[in-house]
């Protein structure tokens, strides 16, 4: 569970984003790691109608992903990072790539340089895939 607010308000109604995040791993049709995000509270007071994003602050945007102990399961060293959004959960958009870092035994996605930051309130699922 991930909860984010502005750190100041004591009124949670419409001011808090809360997410339940779960992970699954699949070797059918290539190798895929799925992060499914279910939003259980929405900061409706922060809704941007133009972008349909309810981010309270920068902590509601995806930054980086680290998957530890990757050598214990992974088959590949490079992956596409794709996002399916709430409004169209069956369509995945590639937003970048992730790679295995042998020195730290992690699969790493650095989202800090994304041209279009990913608002977590819009995300249905993140897929880390190698389709080879």
């Amino acid at each position, binding site marked *: 569970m991930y909860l984010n607010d502005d*750190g*100041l308000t004591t009124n949670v109604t419409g001011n808090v984003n809360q997410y339940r995040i779960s992970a699954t791993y699949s070797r059918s049709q290539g190798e895929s790691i799925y992060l499914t995000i279910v939003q259980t509270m929405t900061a409706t007071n922060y809704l941007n109608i133009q972008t349909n994003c309810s981010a*309270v602050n920068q902590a509601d945007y995806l930054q*980086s992903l680290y998957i530890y102990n990757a050598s214990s399961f992974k088959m590949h060293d490079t992956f596409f990072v794709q996002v399916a959004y709430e409004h169209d959960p069956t369509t995945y958009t590639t937003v970048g790539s992730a790679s295995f870092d042998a020195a730290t*035994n992690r699969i790493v996605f650095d989202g800090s340089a994304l041209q279009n930051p990913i608002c977590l309130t819009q995300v249905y699922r993140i897929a880390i895939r190698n389709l080879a």
Partner: protein
Amino acid sequence: MLGGALKTSVNAKNLTATTTNFYFPAGTWCSVFAPVGDCFYNAVSQNVSLASGLDKSFVHLREGYIVPMQDAVALKAKTTVDL
């Protein structure tokens, strides 16, 4: 333990000790902030020897957990207002 997923290891009682045995519950544990080398697996709960000292501390992540973190350095945040 910080919840079920994170464990901190710091020896504040003996700052001259270079290693300390820290108790870890059973499972696979990975160092979060100094992830060098493999994670370790404890079949049963037992002590694990880690470096210790004034500048040595560890946070370990338990296998099977997702931990969202806010990177204050990357976000250049000193307070929540800066986010």
